[in-house]
């Protein structure tokens, strides 16, 4: 691969007989330079989108730790749902502001010290606690976290961020969100990016850990709220790998709770979380109509 990337894109050879791209554009798709709507955009033909959707769906089922595949599935199948979401955001004043200002939640933009200094029970504090408990924070912030992940056991770091082999923790953090690539509209690309970044806030709001059960509950909530096919598929197929006991708890308690609250709450993408760090979590829950979350065991049930 290094040899491939090393040689720059070679110019067209002056010798004759070269088949130019013009004759094959319908098959080849748009080359970069033309048709790029946002940085990182990869224009794809409908056939490629279909293949990507099928392949990513299969791969995420086969290997649930391929978060990039879940993301690709969302991007390739979510066009209609994203348009609906964007219209909902436009109608709401706070949502319209978000669409205008385009804030991003990432560890580098988060002032973790400030969040730590916030009162107990506030959204910021709870969010920080959520990141901590689920081993997504290293006391040396973002850079060290990536070090932790790549080396498994960082030297000099007081904490060990190796997921316990028995708990299938899905390691997600604000910064493992890959940028959008396959959405062919710049505003919708932001909407799906915002949806991904809000996912962790939803964990905090719903009080769900990042193990498989917790993720499924959040997926059900999101499926009802956003209508994204990826959420619906994840909600339906996620429980496949669960034990009978967890399945029972899921179906009897957790899913009905998630669906009820998802229906009742207004669109969660309309919340400007970056301005609500001081708001107490319970007050926010009340505002959204989210009831007391049922307890989910953190130790791996699957």
């Amino acid at each position: 691969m290094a040899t491939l990337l090393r040689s720059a894109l070679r110019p067209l050879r002056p010798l004759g007989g070269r088949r130019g791209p013009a004759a094959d554009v319908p098959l080849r798709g748009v080359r970069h330079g033309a048709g790029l709507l946002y940085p990182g955009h990869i224009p794809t033909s409908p056939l490629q989108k279909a293949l990507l959707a099928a392949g990513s769906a299969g791969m995420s089922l086969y290997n649930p730790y391929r978060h990039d595949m879940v993301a690709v599935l969302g991007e390739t199948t979510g066009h209609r749902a994203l348009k609906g979401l964007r219209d909902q955001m436009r109608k709401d004043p706070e949502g319209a502001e978000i669409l205008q200002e385009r804030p991003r939640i990432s560890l580098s933009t988060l002032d973790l010290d400030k969040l730590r200094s916030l009162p107990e029970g506030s959204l910021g504090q709870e969010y920080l606690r959520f990141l901590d408990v689920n081993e997504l924070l290293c006391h040396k912030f973002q850079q060290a976290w990536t070090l932790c992940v790549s080396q498994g056991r960082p030297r000099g770091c007081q904490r060990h961020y190796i997921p316990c082999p028995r708990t299938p923790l899905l390691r997600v953090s604000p910064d493992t969100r890959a940028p959008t690539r396959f959405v062919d509209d710049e505003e919708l690309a932001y909407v799906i990016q915002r949806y991904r970044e809000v996912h962790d806030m939803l964990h905090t709001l719903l009080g769900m850990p990042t193990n498989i059960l917790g993720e499924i509950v959040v997926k059900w909530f999101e499926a009802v709220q956003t209508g994204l096919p990826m959420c619906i598929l994840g909600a339906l197929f996620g429980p496949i790998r669960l034990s009978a006991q967890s399945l029972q708890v899921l179906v009897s308690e957790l899913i009905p709770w998630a669906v009820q609250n998802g229906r009742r709450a207004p669109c969660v993408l309309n919340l400007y979380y970056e301005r609500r760090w001081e708001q107490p979590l319970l007050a926010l829950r009340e505002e959204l109509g989210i009831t007391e979350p049922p307890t989910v065991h953190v130790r791996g049930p699957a």
Partner: protein
Amino acid sequence: MATHRSCALWSCCGRRWSRVMRCCRLPGFRSSWPRGPLGARHLSQEKQATETHFGFETVSDKEKGGKGDIAFRFLNYVRAQHKRKQKKQLRAQQNVSWEEIAKKYHNEEDPLGGSRVVVCDINKEMLKIGKQKARAQGHKAGLAWVLGDAEELPFDDDKFDVYSIAFGIRNVTHIDQALQEAHRVLKPGGRFLCLEFSQVNNPLISRLYDLYSFQVIPVLGEVIAGDWKSYQYLVESIRQFPSQEEFKEMIEDAGFEKVTYESLTSGIVAIHSGFKL
């Protein structure tokens, strides 16, 4: 008539025996013969029965000979099998496949057969993987691993009998320089061999190949390896590479003679060969 009868009776297979027996059942026969696997038993039973009923003296004589007859038939059968096997082997020896010839030459201690190979790549990781693969295949000696640039090889002139490059020359920035270097390090009489993606000559297959390359391969790269861009680059670099004839001319420009090429799979891949004379 008796002889005809006896021949009919003494057919080899046991099953046919019983059928024959049934045909010959005469009124008054009452025994149920034990249907053994060997004809011999039938014979002995039959002998008594027929003797009593038909008094076939000749049969009894023939039977004694018949027991031996079966043994001889069996021996003949075994000998014929053996002969057939020998014939097959001889025939196979006359139409030897390349694999069998290679196997005969293969030497466990020295799989390279006395030759020495220098493996050269610009990427250290590739060399590492190559070393692992070679070890897994059982090569212990005779291989040297050199980090080097194809456009500027770290070898002296006229050193090698064969220079081969597979799916590598496409990634070289200046192909003509690489060809000149190949010409330099080869001994006079040495052969240059290059396996590389090339242009498809059949228009229908070309369209299918284009469709597959541009629509499917980057998707596969994304789904399996999480890397769209590298595979997009790969298929584009394949299109950028010169056609078989053009590449042949480039090889001739570098000084090689008797340059030929062979297209595989209607041109998806081509093997070019040239000699330094």
